[in-house]
């Protein structure tokens, strides 16, 4: 801490010198963003009938689930008293965005994602429950909830309900991550955060990161399974990534232009921060590597004729850079918002520790955990029909 004091430039209120929200709070919007984005990609197929991305449908849902399960962990690690966190559900303060978000999260997990995945996989559960021996068979039997009806009528009901869930799920996903944006955007005390654009910027960057992640997962899992990637699927996904990215970039540029033009009380101090303490993470990583580079690469694939292999590699590189860029964006919002003083007269530094509860090691482990969960989920709920799964019936035959 003494070190921190010596690295303060100018004046900070004494209580501001140490940052309140660490890299774990950077992780949290990053993870929920991936969830929202992955789900929205999945909904493209289900609701908007974009058949081309069908191969990624189940993978996107499972990815969303794996990350959603990990999402509360960085928060729990950060809290001063995690054992009291249930209080947010028992006595939520209705004026607090953070409290209300707890219910949005719960709704999204239970009411949307889990239910949709369950309905999607029910035929498999029933088939595997009967066929698989041992403890795995028991797991499947529990997952069927005791119902073995996979008749065309029942599956038709599942299809309709699943469709309705996806339709509800899209605004729910918007709410899930838009709310996280609102948690920051509604803090009038912090001019770096306080803007009505915050929920929208967060949402679109979430969509971008989610699509990038699913694209990567698809390529990697195809490679692991030694299957050919469906290029039509990949091309379409990459195109959606490009569109979402263009919107996201425009929104962020709008925010920037607005700030530069209005140049209000906070502008000079924020501008100075971006040009000095935040330069590498904002200009180099987020904008350069994380936005302009992947945008250029994706645009190139649309303009110039490229071989399958070249396109696939470009997509992978673009997706990786995108993920780095969106993580940097979360970093710049959360950490950047705490590097300057609310007196607008000074700056502090963020010292990220390594092996502490809120350090780099915890962050890396938390980022790896969803992949571990996903691996388990893929084993239990295979996204790819090795044996053909019962097809969803097209329409119920007229009653006779």
């Amino acid at each position, binding site marked *: 801490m003494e070190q921190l004091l010596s690295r303060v430039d100018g004046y900070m209120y004494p209580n501001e010198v140490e940052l309140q929200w660490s890299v774990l709070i950077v992780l949290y919007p990053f993870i929920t963003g991936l969830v929202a984005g992955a789900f929205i990609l999945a909904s493209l197929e289900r609701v908007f009938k974009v058949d081309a991305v069908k191969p990624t449908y189940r993978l996107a849902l499972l990815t969303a689930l794996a990350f959603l399960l990990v999402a509360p962990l960085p928060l729990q690690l950060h809290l001063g008293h995690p054992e009291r966190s249930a209080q947010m559900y*028992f006595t939520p303060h209705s004026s607090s965005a953070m409290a209300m978000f707890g219910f949005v999260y719960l709704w999204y997990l239970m009411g949307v994602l889990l239910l949709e995945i369950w309905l999607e996989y029910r035929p498999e559960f029933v088939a595997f429950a009967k066929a698989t021996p041992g403890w795995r068979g028991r797991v499947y039997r529990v997952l069927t909830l005791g*119902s073995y*009806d996979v*008749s065309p*009528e029942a599956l038709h009901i599942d299809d309709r309900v699943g469709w309705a869930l996806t339709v509800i799920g899209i605004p729910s996903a918007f709410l899930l991550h838009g709310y996280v944006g609102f948690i920051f955007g509604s803090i009038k005390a912090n001019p770096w955060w306080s803007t009505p654009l915050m929920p929208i910027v967060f949402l679109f960057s979430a969509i971008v990161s989610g699509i990038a992640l699913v694209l990567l997962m698809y390529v990697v899992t195809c490679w692991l399974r030694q299957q050919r990637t469906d290029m039509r699927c990949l091309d379409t996904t990459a195109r959606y990534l490009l569109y979402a990215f263009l919107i996201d970039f425009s929104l962020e540029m709008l925010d920037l232009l607005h700030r530069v033009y209005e140049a209000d009380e906070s502008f000079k101090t924020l501008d100075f921060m971006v040009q000095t303490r935040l330069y590498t993470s904002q200009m180099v990583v987020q904008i350069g590597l994380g936005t302009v580079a992947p945008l250029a690469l994706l645009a190139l694939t649309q303009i110039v004729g490229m071989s399958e292999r070249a396109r696939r590699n470009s997509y992978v590189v673009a997706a990786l850079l995108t993920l780095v860029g969106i993580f940097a964006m979360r970093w710049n919002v959360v950490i950047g918002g705490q590097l300057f003083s609310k007196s607008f007269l000074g700056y502090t530094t963020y010292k990220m520790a390594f092996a502490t509860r809120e350090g780099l090691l915890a962050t890396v482990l938390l980022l790896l955990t969803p992949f571990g969960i996903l691996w388990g989920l893929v084993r239990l709920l295979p996204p790819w029909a090795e044996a053909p799964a019962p097809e969803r019936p097209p329409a119920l035959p007229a009653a006779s």
Partner: protein
Amino acid sequence: MVMSGPFGHGEHLVRVAGLLAAGLLFFLLARAVLVPSDFGVYGHYRASALADNRARPLVHAGRAACAPCHAERAAELAKGKHAGVGCESCHGALAAHAADAKAHKARKPDGRALCLTCHRFNVARPASFSQVDPREHAPEGACTDCHAAHDPGP
């Protein structure tokens, strides 16, 4: 096997609904047990938090506590320029002393260092406030050699 029960082919959805309902019930039960009974009485907080915040022991006694035993000092103080200065400004926190004077003795502060805390010249201090440059005004010795601490004179 085709279900011919009351819910027909939607029976599995009813099971899900039942599961969710059970979850909700468990949540409500847990809430009823775990939320403190005095939560929400005055507002969205535990009413006994008011008492909790008042339960801290006193560390400073307040100047009214000194006068009963130290009446002469209090009178001397009231006459001069330090009338508005609390006893504990200079003598430190004295609640323990006020409660048991024998067990906790009050300190007599240093007759120079303490005075300079307030009266050393600092350009940020109001010009009307009595300040001195200790390098020129009595560079050696205690301030109390010439100024009585409780009634410091002009």
